[in-house]
């Protein structure tokens, strides 16, 4: 009887894992689109000028928008792509990918906190694209916290 319960628990844990990492992959895709847009805007010089009513120049045109000459958004592209990759592999049952996903998300979470601090207390201005990105990272961090421990999920690789 006990064996049967364990066998039933494994596919249920596996399903939860698939659903959770599918959601994480979708969120990271949204973040990837956001970061790609901002990277292109930085490369074309759009963030270094004022035009129309985007209202993000104060943030995206600031020195904080670049690290060693590299647009922060480009680092975001790498971060979201890494998160997407690890989420996909974790969803397919790769145990190590779960750890890398969590590490990537927490690193992005730390950077997001820093950028929110800069926007709120240094620049006194917010960019909606950066806030979207912050929301995506917070959602992914929530998923990491909510993810079941490895022993609950079946078919680990």
């Amino acid at each position, binding site marked *: 009887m006990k064996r049967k319960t364990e066998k039933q628990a494994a596919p249920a844990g596996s399903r939860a894992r698939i659903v959770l990492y599918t959601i994480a992959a979708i969120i990271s895709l949204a973040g990837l689109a956001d970061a790609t847009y901002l990277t292109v805007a930085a490369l074309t010089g759009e963030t270094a*000028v*004022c035009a129309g009513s985007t209202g993000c120049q104060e943030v995206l*045109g600031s020195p904080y928008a670049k690290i060693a000459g590299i647009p922060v958004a480009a680092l975001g592209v790498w971060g979201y792509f890494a998160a997407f990759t690890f989420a996909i*592999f974790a969803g397919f049952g790769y145990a190590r990918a779960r750890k890398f996903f969590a590490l990537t998300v927490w690193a992005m979470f730390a950077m997001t906190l820093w950028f929110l601090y800069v926007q709120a207390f240094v620049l006194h201005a917010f960019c909606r694209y950066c806030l979207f990105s912050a929301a995506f990272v917070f959602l992914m961090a929530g998923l990491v916290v909510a993810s079941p421990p490895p022993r609950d999920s079946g078919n680990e690789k």
Partner: protein
Amino acid sequence: MKRYLPFVIVAVVGALTLGAGAMLYRAKRPALLEIPKNSATPDKTASMHVRGQANAAVTLEEFGDFECPPCANLASAYGQIEEGYSAKLRVIFRHFPLPGHPHAQEAALVAEAAGLQGRFWEMHDLLYKEQPIWSKSNEARALFNSYAEMLGLNLERFKTDVDSPEVKERVASDKKRGTDLGVNSTPTIFINDRQVPPPVNVGTIRAAIEAALNPKPSP
């Protein structure tokens, strides 16, 4: 097949991201503007503000908006831009207040009014320096008046000039010139009548100045 599926998904998403980014880049890359030779309109001498010698080899013409943060960043870097060029470079400033900036038009009028008392560049620098304060203030006019006092301007005359048709006409004339040239963002910089390709920063502007000073012989 299932074993390779995650690799396929990741590769497809990677390729799509690169492709979409490249397409977006091509779509967003602006066409560079040029000032036609016959555009030496009378207004060029009527209201423009010039720093440097009239016979300088290179003319830098900026269309700027006092409420635009990248313009403020650029204004603070003019020392670096002009370093080493002295007599070879002259700088022209033109107003291009953007409609999305609520105090930009008024700031342009303020700079012009200061210009009527011979302190345009001082007010130009002060407006950019204090931009984070007045741009967020509901009492921008009071701050502008305090800046006029700081610069030692005749305050009564300044207040009258800010609202005068002459000052409004000067700003409108600059804006019209920019619009006629196709300017739609600030800062837009022309070096010897050719737009500096974005991103506009110290490096790209100095490179454009160097190119204007040392033109490559045409093949």
